[in-house]
């Protein structure tokens, strides 16, 4: 496991472990949401993935949609480690999630190189290395928006609760 387990705190803001600036209030999860401060160590991927899947299930998204969110958060965080942080495993990543009654919105904030993956062309050859994480984000989510920050990147992902789950 990485040096730091994800901290789950739904009541008060928490600072990323390292000297990154405090996220703006717009990034904060509202009461009842999920907020995870982790490092960019891939050892944290499973815990974050499981936490997000659990959050989606609690909010009625169903197994399939929750699994989609888990995979996309995994891929987003892996891209942060590999690309935004150039492989560094000790940098801060903030993951928040909230449910608005119809969809789960997840944000992944990093303080990396600020390169916007949205400009990457979809891969044509499925056997070519790299790029599959973005394919997952584009295909499995209802919304996926990268918003450059002065000191990094903010990824906002949105997954609607399937209609079949609304009466569950």
């Amino acid at each position: 496991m990485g040096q730091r387990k994800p901290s789950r705190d739904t009541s008060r803001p928490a600072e990323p472990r390292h000297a990154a600036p405090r996220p703006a209030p717009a990034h904060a999860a509202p009461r009842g949401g999920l907020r995870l401060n982790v490092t960019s160590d891939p050892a944290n991927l499973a815990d974050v993935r499981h936490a997000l899947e659990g959050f989606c299930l609690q909010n009625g998204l169903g197994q399939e949609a929750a699994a989609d969110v888990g995979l996309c958060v995994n891929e987003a965080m892996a891209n942060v480690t590999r690309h935004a942080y150039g492989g560094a495993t000790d940098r801060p990543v903030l993951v928040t999630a909230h449910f608005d009654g119809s969809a789960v919105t997840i944000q992944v904030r990093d303080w990396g190189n600020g390169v916007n993956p949205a400009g990457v062309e979809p891969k044509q050859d499925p056997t070519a290395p790299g790029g599959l994480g973005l394919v997952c984000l584009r295909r499995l989510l209802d919304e996926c928006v990268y918003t450059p920050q002065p000191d990094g990147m903010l990824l906002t992902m949105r997954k609607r609760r399937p209609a079949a789950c609304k009466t569950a």
Partner: protein
Amino acid sequence: MDLKTISPLIPAARKVGDALVLALRGEIDLNSSPELRSEVLALMAKSTPKRIVFNLAGVPYMDSSALAVLVEAMQKMRKVGGKVHLTNLQPRVQGLIEIARLGTIFVIAKDEAEALK
């Protein structure tokens, strides 16, 4: 013939004729896929198979980095005219393969017996 493995990600490996049969286990993501890659490449180098069969019954989840290991194995096998078979796909792994449009790149089989026919 059973082969010795080091990684718990591959609890069982054996050579059946010209096929290398590997049983994988666990949720495999960027944290563990480098270990998987190292072990798979070592077993391939040691056994020089014409086919590789990955039994994924014990893999409920993998991310793109793990799938990339299977693709790399497939590309190495292609160079020697071989193929990679995937068996016992669990729903989430099957879903990832479909998203990645790799369903026709690998040979998908129900189980090891079907793959080894």
